[in-house]
C-alpha cells in the first residue's frame, strides 16, 4: 500500500489548518503525546526510546576510548549517526546513508555539540593521547512525522542515561575499574520543529502534514533560552518575520518539554 496521501486529504489538512485546527484535534502549536523510556539496551552504555505520537526512534550510545582530535587535545569526541531503518517506512530503502539520514544526523549533532550538552573536558583521560569517544546512533524505527525532534529527544535521553566506565592509569597503562560514572552533561537542549502550511507555523508535523507543508524550520534551544542550532529544510521559504515567530514558539515549547521531563 503506497504511503502517498490523496489529494483530497491534503486539501482537507490545508483547509483545517487555515481554520487553526489539525486532523488529530491538536492545536497548531501542540506536540503529539511524547513517551520516553531509558536503559532498554543493556549492551549499550546508554539508550533511550522515544515515542512522538506514532513516530518511534531508538538511540543507543556506545562509549569507547580513542585519540582526541589534534586541535582539541583535551576534549572527548562525540559523533552522531542516524539510520532510516527500512522497516520504519515504505519509502526507506536499505543501503548507504542518503541525504535525508545525513541531514538528520548532522542536525541532531549540531544541537548537542553547539550547546556543549556534553562536558567534553571531563571525557579527557590523558591529554593529547586518550579520551572517551561517545558514539550516538539514532535508529528510526517508525516514521510518522517529525524525525528531527524525536531523534533529538532520543539522543539527549540516551546521553542522560549513559554511563562511562571507571578507569585508572597504572604504570602508564589504562586499566578499567569497577563501577561507572554518569556521562557529564552541562546542558539539555531541546529541538523544536515547525512546518509551514498556508503561511501557518505548525509544531511537530505529522507525516501527512509533512506532505502538505512546503518547508520546515528546526531550532535547538537550551535552558537559558539561547538558540544553539537552526536548520531550514524543504523547498519553500520563510519571511524574516515568520522566522522570528518560529524562534518565539521554539523557546516556549522547549521550556514546556524540559519541564515535562524534568531536564
Amino acid at each position, binding site marked *: 500500500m503506497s504511503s502517498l496521501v490523496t489529494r483530497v486529504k491534503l486539501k482537507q489538512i490545508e483547509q483545517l489548518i487555515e481554520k487553526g485546527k489539525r486532523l488529530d484535534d491538536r492545536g497548531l502549536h501542540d506536540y503529539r503525546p511524547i513517551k520516553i523510556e531509558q536503559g532498554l539496551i543493556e549492551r549499550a552504555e546508554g539508550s533511550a526510546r522515544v515515542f512522538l505520537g506514532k513516530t518511534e526512534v531508538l538511540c543507543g550510545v556506545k562509549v569507547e576510548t580513542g585519540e582526541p582530535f589534534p586541535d582539541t587535545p583535551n576534549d572527548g569526541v562525540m559523533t552522531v549517526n542516524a539510520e532510516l531503518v527500512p522497516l520504519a517506512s515504505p519509502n526507506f530503502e536499505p543501503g548507504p546513508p542518503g541525504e535525508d539520514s545525513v*541531514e538528520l544526523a548532522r542536525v541532531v549533532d549540531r544541537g548537542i555539540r553547539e*550547546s556543549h550538552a556534553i562536558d567534553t573536558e571531563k571525557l579527557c583521560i590523558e591529554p593529547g593521547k586518550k579520551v572517551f569517544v561517545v558514539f550516538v546512533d539514532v535508529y528510526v524505527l517508525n516514521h510518522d512525522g517529525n524525525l528531527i525532534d524525536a531523534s533529538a529527544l532520543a539522543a539527549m535521553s540516551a546521553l542522560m542515561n549513559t554511563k562511562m566506565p571507571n578507569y585508572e592509569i597504572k604504570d602508564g597503562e589504562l586499566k578499567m575499574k569497577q563501577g561507572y560514572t554518569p556521562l557529564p552533561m552541562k546542558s539539555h537542549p531541546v529541538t523544536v520543529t515547525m512546518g509551514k502550511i498556508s503561511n501557518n507555523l505548525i509544531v511537530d508535523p505529522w507525516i501527512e502534514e509533512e506532505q502538505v507543508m512546503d518547508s520546515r524550520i528546526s531550532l535547538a534551544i537550551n535552558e537559558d533560552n539561547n538558540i544553539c542550532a537552526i536548520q531550514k529544510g524543504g523547498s519553500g521559504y520563510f519571511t524574516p518575520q515568520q522566522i522570528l515567530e518560529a524562534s518565539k514558539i521554539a523557546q516556549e515549547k522547549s521550556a514546556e518539554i524540559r519541564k515535562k521531563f524534568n531536564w
Partner: protein
Amino acid sequence: MNEKTEKLIDKKGIRLDGRKADELRPLKLQVGILSNADGSAYIEHGKNKILAAAFGPREMHPKHLSQPDKMVLRCRYHMAPFSVQERKSPAPSRREVELSKVIKECLEPALFLELYPRTGVDVYIEVLQADGGTRCASITAAALAIADAGVPMRDLVVGCAAGKIDDTVVLDLYDAEDKLGAADVPVAYMPSLNAVTLLQMDGILTPDEFEKAMNMAIDGCKKIYEMQKEALKTKYMVVKEEGEE
C-alpha cells in the same frame, strides 16, 4: 581547552582582516565562463573561489528519478581536494551531502518546477578554494548559472552569512572567524519576494543576537544581489551601435 586569548575584533571594532563589523569581503562575479554548460558562473568572495554550472532543463537519467508533473532540481556541492588547508579526500563527505541538500532546497523556491514536467536541471558547484562562507558564495554563483541557462526564475537567490565573534555580531565571517567565533548564521534570500530560502545556525546566540545576525545577513544579501544583477547584465550588455564608433 584551546584558550585563544587573541581577540577577533579589537576595541575600535576592526577585525583581524581589517574589516569593520558590517563590512563584506571583496567580491567578484562572472557569468557564462564555461562553454559546455547551459549556464555558468564564477565567484570570488574573499579567498573563496567557486565555479557553478547548470545543465538543463533536459531529460533525466535515470528516467525513474523524473517526476511526471514537474521539473526536478539536482545539486552537487563538492570541494576540490586542494581547496582546503589539509588535503581533502575527493569522496563526498557528510558535510558535502548535507550542503548539497540544503543548497538544492534553497534554489528550488526560485524555479517554476511545474513548467517543464519530466525534465531535470543539474547544478554542479565546485569549490576550488575555501575560506569560510562557501555555501553562501556557492548559492550566489549557482543562481547566476541557472539564470544564464535561460531557466525561468522567480528571482535570483543570493547567499550571505553573519555571526558572532567575541561579543560582537558581524557580517560575512571568513574561515578563522567561523572556527574561533561564537556563532555562524548562513542565509540565502530572494530580495524581490522577501523570502529566506536557506537558514542554518551553529553556535550559541540569544534570540536578540540571532535576530540581529539574521537581519545583518539579509542586508548583506541585498548588497550582493546588486552585484549579481550587474554580473548577469554585463554578459548580455547591449552592443554599441556601429554608427557610434
